Every structure is written in C-alpha cells, then in structure tokens.
C-alpha cells in the first residue's frame, strides 16, 4: 500500500480503503494514536487525591489518576508482571491499584509499591523502581481538559492545539468549562475517521440526514430541511494546523435547546467575553460550533455535547459522550443543558440517532474489491478557502463546505507518512495562517 496515494490533498480526494484497511489501521494506531494528543478526561472528573478515571488512547487502556500530592498522572493499565489489566473499574477513588492476578499493587502515580512474597519468592531481587505501570509520556491540560500523548517528541499540548486553543478560550476562559459525567458509552459500526470528519465540518448533512429532528424543532431549524437554501454570511468553516477543524453558525448557540435559560445566559455573558477576549470571540461565544480536535475528540459548542471516538478496529468505534458546561452556571441550568444535550446527541438522541446508518454505510462499501479501489471526494469549497484577516486558520466563508475535512486529511496524510514529529516540525505549517488576532 502506497501511503502517498491515500489522500490527494490538492484535489480533495481520499481512497475508500482508508475506512476499511486493516493494515492501515494498525499503522494509524502507531502513527496517529501513539503520536497525537488524545483526550483523557476533564479535571473536574478527578478533583480529589485518589480519584481515578479509566479510558483509552487508541486501543491502549490507560488510567488517569490524581495523586495524594494533587498531580494528575496517566499510565497504561497493564501490570508489569504478566500484563493483566490492573484497574477494572471505570472510575472511583482509591489509595492504590492492585492486580487481581498475583496481588502486585501500584500507587496513584503507577509506581510499583507492593509485591507479595517479595522476600520469599523474589529474594528481594526485584527492582521495583523499574516496574511501574508504563507512564504516558506527556500529560497536560488545557482549561482543565486533560490530554495524553505517548510520544515524547510531540510538541507540548498548547502548541499541538495551536489556534484551536485560542478559539476554545471563547468558552473556557471567562468562567471556566467542565464536563458532566460519567460519559454515555455506545458503539458505531464505522471507521473512527468518518465520525471525526463529520463533526469537524459536515454541515452539509444536517439539512438532509437530520430532517426529521429539524422538522420537529421547527422555526429557523426547519428552514434547513432538504438543503434547499443557503443564505450568505451565516457562519464560517475553519481548518487549523495539526488537523483540527470546526464549523460555526453565527447567533445559533442554543438553537437545539428548548427554553430560554441557556440563551439568556449566553446573552448576558457575551459582553464579558467581548471585554476579555474581543468582539470576534464574543461572536463565536454566541455561535453554534461543530468541532474536531485531531484525531478523535469532537464537540458541539452550544448543544454542548463532548465526544471521543475510541477506535475498535477499522470498522467500529466506541463513542463516549459528556455534557459541556461553564463552571459558574447555576445548578439548574447545568442540569437543563445536560438533559438537552443528551436528548439530542446521546445514544437515543433525536439528532444523533440519524447518523449511524450513514457512517456505517460509508465504511461497508469498501468491503468489496471494487469498492476498496475506489475514491471519495470532498471538494466542496476547495477554491474558496484561505487566510482571513480577522480569523486565524484557513477559512471558508461558507459553513457548508469541506475545508475542515480537507484540513483533517492533510494532516492525517502527513502524520502517517512521517517517520516522526521532528520530520513534521521541520515542515511549513500544513494550512496557511495569516490572520491578525485580537
């Protein structure tokens, strides 16, 4: 398989086999998931010493824990003796992690603390200092969102996020943001990339796939049904270095929420966002976003669902969903937002329920030999994207375009071909970035 052929960046085309091929998937586990910053948890899920949360980076199970000293550590959930998974609970509070096989016990930082029969059977010859659960090479947070990276050569988190962090400050900087858990968990019969690209920039599907939910919602949303009209200046689509991308619709943050409480909250806080971050980001504060943080962390700001697509082989992923809120929202508003977010984009979501068939269908059609040779295209708006004097990143003036999708695959293509981050870092930024920032 020639990796150079998989993504035709210039022409906005991809090979269908990127959603099917097993060999490519194994390569992705190495070159995408073991090199990128992967979302782990929000700090609010593990506030106290001893709190822990288990999750995945690619297909590696990891434990994220807060030590007695208050630090956040992450390490691979595998005993260094014979490899058994050590922590079998999804979350909780503990003093240590004990393996159910031979009783080895590990601290909140993953260090090996106790070995039964250490004197009698190991004759005190075991070097425990070398036998801690394998640490995740880099662990860091942005606005309380904890990410981990297995690659010590990857740029620091803030640099990896780049301007995505600048944009996200829109809703994290004023009062702080947090996630309400535990996450909903379910599956999709699709390649993880189809879900990620959908959230990064597929506004085109909303009026068609989600027609039923739009009809019930009524009003402005119902006007989108059937993709019969596309007004101008209703939003933008943004592609950023390192494959991140998102789409915004202006003045639509709470459009999927019933009731006025959230809309009023945003209206009342927007001036403060403007004062702290400038008028442009205040505009983003009032917009609805669909976003993907490369590789597999997506969210809708406004609807306030936050997701990770854990890859489970090339044809399946496991979806974890939290609710995103601002920390200083009243309790009742957080509760209300959680209900609306899960009602629309949870496992029985009035919108989310429409997507599974399409995502699975895009995966399955590469099963046959002819399908596997085929290509798909993402050319919408390909000649209408570029730098913007007001906004960092590569911007498309229409939110209905495929700029974010192309940005995702451009970085994906570079990442899977590069021997390492140093080869990536030596290159020019993958998308133009000539904007003036406030």
């Amino acid at each position: 398989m020639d990796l150079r052929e998989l993504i035709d960046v210039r022409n906005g085309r991809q090979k269908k086999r990127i959603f099917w091929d097993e060999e490519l998937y194994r390569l992705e586990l190495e070159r995408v998931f073991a090199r990128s910053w992967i979302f782990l948890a929000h700090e609010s899920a593990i506030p106290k010493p001893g709190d822990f949360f288990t999750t995945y980076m690619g297909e590696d199970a990891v434990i994220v824990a807060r030590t007695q000293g208050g630090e956040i550590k992450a390490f691979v959930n595998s005993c260094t003796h014979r490899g058994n998974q050590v922590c079998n609970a999804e979350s909780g509070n503990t003093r240590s992690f004990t393996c159910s096989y031979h009783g080895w016990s590990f601290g909140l930082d993953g260090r090996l603390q106790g070995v039964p029969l250490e004197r009698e059977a190991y004759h005190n010859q075991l070097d425990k200092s070398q036998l801690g659960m394998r640490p995740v090479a880099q662990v860091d947070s942005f606005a309380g969102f904890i990410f981990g990276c297995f690659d010590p050569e990857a740029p620091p988190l803030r640099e990896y996020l780049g301007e995505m962090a600048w944009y996200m400050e829109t809703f994290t900087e004023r009062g702080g943001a947090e996630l309400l858990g535990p996450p909903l968990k379910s599956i999709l019969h699709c390649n993880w990339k189809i879900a990620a690209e959908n959230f990064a920039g597929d506004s085109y599907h909303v009026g068609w796939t989600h027609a039923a939910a739009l009809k019930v919602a009524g009003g402005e949303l119902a006007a989108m049904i059937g993709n019969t009209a596309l007004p101008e200046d209703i939003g933008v689509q943004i592609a950023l270095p390192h494959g991140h991308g998102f789409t915004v619709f202006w003045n639509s943050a709470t459009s999927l929420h019933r009731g006025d409480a959230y809309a009023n909250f945003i209206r009342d806080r927007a001036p403060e966002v403007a004062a702290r971050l400038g008028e442009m980001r205040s505009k983003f504060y009032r917009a609805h976003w669909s976003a993907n943080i490369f590789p597999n962390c997506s969210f809708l700001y406004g609807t306030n669902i936050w997701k990770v697509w854990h890859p489970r082989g090339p044809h399946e992923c496991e979806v974890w969903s939290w609710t995103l809120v601002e920390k200083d929202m009243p309790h009742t508003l957080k509760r209300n937002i959680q209900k609306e977010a899960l009602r629309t984009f949870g496992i029985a979501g009035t919108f989310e329920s429409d997507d599974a068939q399409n995502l699975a269908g895009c995966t399955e059609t590469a099963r046959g030999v002819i399908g596997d040779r085929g290509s798909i295209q993402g050319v919408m708006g390909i000649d209408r994207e570029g730098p913007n004097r007001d906004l960092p990143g590569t911007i498309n003036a229409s939110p209905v375009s495929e700029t974010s999708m192309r940005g995702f695959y451009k970085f994906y293509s570079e990442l899977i071909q590069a021997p390492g981050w140093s080869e990536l870092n030596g290159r020019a930024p993958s998308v133009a970035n000539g904007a003036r920032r406030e």
Partner: protein
Amino acid sequence: MSDPVSLELYHAIEQFYFREARLFGEKRYREWLDSMVDSSIHYWLPIFEDRYKGDRKEPPPFPPAIYDDNYADLDERIRRLETDLVWMEDPPSRIRHLISNIEAYHGESNGEFIVYSNFLVCRNRREREQTIMVGSREDRLRPDNSTFKLTRREIKLPQRVILDTNLYYFM
C-alpha cells in the same frame, strides 16, 4: 413489603404489558402514548457507573440518563418518527419485545401499583443487523377505567457500553 395484587388484577396488568409490547412491535407509538401513558409520566433510563463495590468516591452530581423524559418529551420523540423523514427507518426496522418476570404489588398511595418486569428486545434492521437488549423495568401504574396508565418507568440496562448504535425505541 407491599401486598401482591390479586390474581385477577395480576392478569389484567400482565395483559396490559403484553398489549404494550405489541404496540411497540407494531410501532403504534402514538396509540401507546394516548392510551397507556399518564400525563405525569417520568420515563427514565439512567446511566450507571461501573465502580468497585467498596468505592468511596461520591456519586456524580449530575447523573446522566439515556432517557429522562416527561410526557412532552415522549410526544416529541414520537412526532419525529411521524414526520416520515427518519431515513434509518426506511425500510422499517423490525422489533419484538418479550416481557417476563412480572411482579405486581399495591403501592403506597391509593390505587397505585408497583410493577416489576424484565424485557428482551430484539431489533432487526436491513440485511443482517440484529441487536438484543435485555433489561428490567420498575413501573408505577394507576388505574384508568378498566385499564391502567403508566405514571413512572425506570429502565435498567446492564450494558455499560450500549452495544447498539442507537436506542431510539421504547422499552
């Protein structure tokens, strides 16, 4: 412990559940809502967290749910299906509910019944998709003329990772 209902009442409640299952299987959701669901309904499917038995962490302050619906919420879900724009349901999926382990007791307040039941739902879609979901329900029913209305349903599913792509059906 509450008093079990009489044999006659038990039969009536059991028939109510079987009729409900048939309405679900035939996708007659509007009829279900109109004839079997009280306006005060809380239809609730909470998420559980898979913690160790002895775990000391406090419970989540905002426990999430897959369904947390009142009457208006259920009505909206059914209206979505009635738009006929749900592409995933065209061709329609096929669904069948097996209901068992019914226990019916008199409730605390006048005329209320507490009913436990288990279900097995089998959903088939397209060519070979099949998902089977097993769970339990704890319901409150109130008498309504010669039949009953559901005022509360708490559904429990044992799957922490729901092994289906959506749970957009009623149990």
